[in-house]
């Protein structure tokens, strides 16, 4: 087993969360973002497809999904950057028995709106949206999507039938967007009771009707809080923008070497600026021409420019997956991405120049970044009213606590 190291962070530091096929890593740097301390791995040996950092109400809580092909998928958390890990005794994200579904993986963890500080969301496989209204203690599926009439016709994409994008609308608490591979984009305007497909203009090259109501293979979708009516979408072939809340989409693949790709990230301060990493094709899922290039538009898709300084431009046959591109919220935004070959690159100057942050990792499937905004406190919370057990030595230095979900909590989750 690898030796586990830990980092800690203070206000003004940046943390980089990296989920890999063999565990999670947490990196820390100061605001300059030149040198990084590396913490982890956590959940050693397990694929970690989703990570998130909750800083609301003074928390400094890391969340990540721990998938095991043997023991199933569980949501873990830590209030001290991984030194102490909480893994629920009874898995907290579970389908109700009557759904006849069983959880395969958690693809997305989304922190809720600031004004709903106890709310979190998970996107899972098979495609469903779970929500927690008690800061992650208990979870329940969003019934309107679980029972959606389109569900029988949704099919898995290459990675499985996953709900991988969750965008709570910052201006309208009743509105939310989600994206599913392969079903497309959906929007609710009534807090999750009903969901409408929002794919008009998005092409599904693999279907006889190439512009169906739903069935598109959306790979990632982003939205900027300053302009919530506008969305950008990286499709399985195709780059799109919507200016009307997803009602219609138009192509914006203007000057990219390929409009195939997985990942997409929006600039934290500029709603016209979006980053992608083009992939050659669905047949050859590597960077075109052996050049590792992040492409950026600064005019909402009218044109794109390659960002290459510091990135290998020869024999770089890389793949960057849908959740492996992220930004921090520093005034000069940091941009980060991870590759299936286990490298993480970062830019502290909005993509003008890049450096290798870390290499030699297992295949990277998730990257998230956050500017630490306070000292935070190490919680002594108890989940579900259960006794918090004494920490045990685990994984050569990490401690794991287990929290027991109460019967009441389980019932609530199953009924909603």
């Amino acid at each position, binding site marked *: 087993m690898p030796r586990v190291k830990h980092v800690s962070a203070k206000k003004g530091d940046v943390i980089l969360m990296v989920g890999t096929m063999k565990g999670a890593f947490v990196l820390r740097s100061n605001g300059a973002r030149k040198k990084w301390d590396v913490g982890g791995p956590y959940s050693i040996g397990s694929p970690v497809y989703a990570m998130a950092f909750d800083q609301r109400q003074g928390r400094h809580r890391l969340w990540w999904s721990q998938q095991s092909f*043997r023991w199933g998928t569980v949501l873990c958390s830590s209030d001290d950057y991984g030194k102490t890990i909480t893994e629920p005794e009874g898995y907290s994200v579970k389908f109700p028995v009557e759904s006849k579904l069983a959880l395969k993986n958690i693809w997305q963890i989304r922190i809720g709106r600031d004004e709903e500080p106890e709310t979190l969301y998970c996107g899972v496989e098979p495609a469903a949206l779970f929500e927690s209204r008690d800061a992650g203690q208990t979870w329940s599926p969003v019934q309107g999507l679980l029972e959606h009439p389109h569900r029988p016709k949704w099919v898995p994409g290459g990675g499985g039938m996953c709900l991988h994008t969750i965008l709570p609308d910052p201006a309208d608490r009743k509105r939310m967007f989600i994206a599913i591979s392969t079903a497309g984009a959906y929007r609710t305007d009534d807090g999750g009771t009903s969901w409408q497909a929002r794919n008009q203009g998005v092409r599904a090259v693999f279907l006889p009707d190439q512009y169906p109501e739903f069935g598109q293979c959306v790979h990632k979708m982003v939205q900027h809080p300053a302009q919530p009516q506008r969305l950008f979408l990286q499709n399985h072939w195709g780059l799109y923008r919507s200016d009307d809340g997803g009602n219609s989409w138009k192509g914006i693949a203007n000057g990219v070497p390929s409009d195939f790709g997985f990942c997409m990230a929006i600039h934290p301060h500029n709603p016209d600026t979006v980053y992608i990493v083009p992939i050659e094709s669905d047949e050859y899922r590597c960077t075109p021409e052996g050049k590792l290039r992040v492409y950026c538009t600064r005019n909402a898709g009218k044109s794109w420019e390659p960002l290459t300084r510091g990135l290998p431009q020869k024999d770089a046959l890389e793949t960057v997956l849908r959740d492996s591109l992220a930004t921090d919220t520093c005034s000069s935004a940091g941009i980060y991405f991870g590759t299936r070959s286990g490298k993480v690159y970062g830019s502290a100057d909005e993509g003008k120049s890049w450096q290798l942050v870390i290499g030699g990792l297992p295949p990277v499937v998730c990257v998230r970044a956050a500017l630490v905004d306070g000292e935070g406190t190490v919680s002594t919370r108890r989940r579900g009213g259960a006794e918090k057990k004494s920490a045990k030595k685990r994984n050569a230095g990490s401690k794991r606590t287990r929290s027991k979900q109460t019967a009441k909590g389980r019932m609530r989750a199953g009924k909603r």
Partner: protein
Amino acid sequence: MAISFRIPNYLASLAGGQTSLAIDTSPATVDEALESLWKAHPVLRDRIVDEQGEVRQHINIFVGDEAIRFADGLGTKVPNGTEILIVPAVSGG
């Protein structure tokens, strides 16, 4: 009459550190035996079966030396005094 379970090290670390668990019960089937195991050690349930109560794909359960996958599944009979083995499958990469 007690029934015994042998569980892998990973699960033992969640259940008091023991790889061999004895429970005073006389189940007729594996399903009943597992129910008594969940009652004694609730933490094991979600790790061995999914939400639908199905044994996870990469876990094998044996009654004596018989794999329930090739017998009657969770309905496999449990003779008195037989040890039930819960074993991770040789799979993955």
